[in-house]
């Protein structure tokens, strides 16, 4: 099971999904109307490390985080 969490202003509860890579997550979230405005500008982290590709394999227990645009300070 993979946990998907939505950070900051994305008002969405975490998901628990049976997926084996980020491509499968992309397909699921692209069908989710409330996520459509966020996907184009969210960064993605797997186990708290930012990733730049959807190809890395996932294993049970992994945590995926979606990070929308930031503005500290």
């Amino acid at each position: 099971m993979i946990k998907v969490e939505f950070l900051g202003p994305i008002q969405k509860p975490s998901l628990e999904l049976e997926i084996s890579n980020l491509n499968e997550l992309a397909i699921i979230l692209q069908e989710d109307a409330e996520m459509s405005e966020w996907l184009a500008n969210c960064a993605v982290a797997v186990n708290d490390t930012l990733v730049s590709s959807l190809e890395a394999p996932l294993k049970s227990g992994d945590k995926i985080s979606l990070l929308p645009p930031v503005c500290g300070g």
Partner: protein
Amino acid sequence: MLYLYDGSLPVSNILKEWYEQEATSNYGAYIPFVGTVRSEDGIDGLSFDIYEPILNSWFDAWQEKAKTKGAVIKMAHSRGDVMLHESSYIAAVFSPKRRVALEFIDEFVEDFKASAPIWKYDLRDGERIYALDRSTAIKGSGILGVQK
């Protein structure tokens, strides 16, 4: 040396504490940057969410970079609400000579704005409104939105 506070920062105490921490470390330069909430566009204040695991690793990478130049970085940031004329952010660089600290404070604060996992909200009439128009997508964003 990353310090997170609930609410506004006690600026004078932090600057003094950092000064005293390094008073005998033989640094020739101490260059702080203090970010203060300004009155503009009718806001009552700002509010912040922080994702600590990635903030910590981002900060640690900068600290390593500073170390290679003989410098040290300190940073303080607020969680939650910070009202007008209060401060939410302090960054400081200590270095043996001024040039390294001057360059680092500029690069560090710019990367902080673009990369640190902190989200800002305007406080207005009791509402907390995400400041999307002032926010920056982290480098590499958008990979989940590409249609196959």
